[in-house]
């Protein structure tokens, strides 16, 4: 479903080259829940950005759903992002002067759905994250955990194949973090493939597989399958 072969990413600033990813290879199957861990600067976020088509790469091959996405045009990659990928960010990234309904509406607008279809989807996903009654509220009127739920609802509204989450609980206290993780696990159980970057080993353990990145490569022997321990969370 997601296949990266020997991906390299080099940042150049003048004569200085920084290798963010080095011959990075990874296969993700449909329905997997993968946690990505590694020390700061190891290349986790670069991997996530490339996986989300937010960033190009220097070398290698990247296939998404069997399609080579190495050289898509801007409009093509935007379309793939819009239709197949959902993003959840550490700092929620809600638009402050749009209410919850309109925030969730953003990706659907670019999808070209009718007003009725957008409304149906928005109400459904807000219901899923338990915020249907607050769809006219502004983000500032919600707690951090609720804001992240809205961000997840926004990511899910387009019914993506992948959910890419970058430290989704990084700005939340432990109680809220667990609540959000339960939601993410639930989404995975419903069939959405999830790739989640985290620093927290406990959260990483909740994934079905952990990928550890070190110096831009998948760490040898670190890719391991784990049993999701949602029951104990």
């Amino acid at each position, binding site marked *: 479903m997601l296949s990266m072969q020997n991906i390299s990413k080099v940042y150049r600033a003048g004569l200085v080259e920084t290798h963010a990813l080095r011959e990075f290879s990874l296969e993700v199957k449909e329905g997997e829940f993968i946690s990505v861990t590694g020390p700061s600067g190891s290349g986790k976020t670069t991997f996530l950005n490339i996986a989300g088509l937010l960033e190009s790469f220097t070398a290698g091959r990247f296939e998404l759903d069997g399609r080579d996405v190495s050289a898509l045009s801007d*409009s093509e990659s935007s379309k793939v992002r819009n239709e197949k990928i959902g993003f959840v960010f550490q700092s929620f990234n809600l638009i402050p002067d749009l209410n919850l309904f309109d925030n969730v509406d953003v*990706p659907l607008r670019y*999808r070209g759905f009718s007003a009725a279809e957008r409304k149906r989807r928005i109400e459904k996903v807000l219901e899923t994250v338990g915020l249907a009654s607050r769809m006219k509220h502004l983000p500032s009127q919600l707690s951090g955990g609720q804001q992240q739920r809205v961000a997840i609802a926004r990511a899910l509204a387009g019914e993506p194949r992948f959910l890419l989450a970058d430290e989704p609980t990084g700005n939340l206290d432990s109680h809220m973090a667990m609540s959000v993780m339960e939601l993410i696990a639930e989404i995975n159980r419903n069939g959405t493939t999830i790739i989640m970057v985290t620093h927290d080993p406990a959260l990483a353990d909740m994934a079905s597989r952990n990928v550890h990145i070190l110096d831009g490569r998948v760490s040898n022997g670190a890719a391991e399958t784990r049993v999701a321990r949602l029951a104990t969370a």
Partner: protein
Amino acid sequence: MFSYYLKLGWLSIRRNPLLSALMIAAIAVGIGASMTIITVNYVMSGNPIPQKSDQLFYVQLDNWDPNWDPNDSDDGNLEPRDQLTYLDAMALMKAGKAYRQVASNRTGLVLEPQGEDEMPFSVDTRNTWSDFFPMFDLPFIYGSGWDDSADQNLERVVVLSKEINERVFGGENPVGRSVRLNGMDFRVVGVIDEYQPVPKFYDVTNDAFGEAEDIFIPFNVAVEYQFPRNGNTNCWKKPDGDGFEAFLNSECIWIQFWAELRNDTEKQDYMDFLNAYVAQQKEIGRFPRPINNRLSDVMEWMEKQEVVEDDAQVMLGLSLLFLMVCLLNTIGLLLAKFMGKSTDISLRRALGASRSSLFVQHMIETGLIGLGGGILGLGLTWVGLRGIEMLFEDIVKNLVSLDWVMVVTAIGLAIASALLAGLYPTWRACRIAPATQLKIQ
């Protein structure tokens, strides 16, 4: 999506009210300054009689001094002087070769109201012919112009302006009643409605932007009673003798002459007639210069007479330069605004917006700012025009009105200017690398 982008634009403007206000103000000041000058130029250079300006021709005959060294005209030929002698004007009127023709000049008379308490006052007067009224489409409230027999029979008839009729007759129908001009009774035959062509094309030799005359009387009557002449009288040699009769028979020019020619054939025929007339006059010792007759339609005549002065053109250029300076400021402000939206832009990119859709979104926001600048700029234009009116009341009295064309132009110019100013900031904003911005968050 357009309405969605409009909503986003409005929200963005509200999100940074100070920055937005600065941009709107910068555009408004530029629009206000440039539109003030553009409006004055527009009115000055407008077509005062669009329905038939291409059928009305000003007549020039070159009867001047053979040693005269005139400036070259635009087409490289020597431009004849801008008025006719009495001899030539009367000869052309008598020949009647045009569909309509009018010789006229301006004078000033004294009108003596009939009321005992009212003081006499001076009235600007046009001495003209019966064709003047249908030829220049003067609108009548009461009555009409006089007829051809009044011209021929020296009838003392008069057409009043609406303003004079209100002053003398309280606005009632005065047709058939008399007014006393320079001690003589004139029978009122008509009252014209508001009539103020801008420029006053039929006589640009006397203040092209001045008021239309208060009253109109037959040219022959003015000559018969030797009413004084207002306006330019130029002579290249002294009259042969003293007195008014000698003046009339002199080579002095003081009469404006218009001919209505409905098509190219009529125009060519009339030009042939003028050439033949001058050739004939040469045989009796007049017209010492080469034949150089001209027929200029209304807009050509306005251009030849440089109704829109060079100063006004320079001011127009300066005002547009000022608009550009304002736009440069707007570019800076837009850059600051859009760079401040980098997170929002990156987020939308991540959620599936293409660069082109973000470009359209931000250009619409820029257009909204331009619209705001245009509306405020219209207000400033109005203030600017009122200021000009106060400063130069006598000169620009008829030049300082905003019509719908200028309103649309102001709004259009503001939006176009804003869009132009927004191109670079929008392009920059759409080039923001989303990954970098989202990582910073």
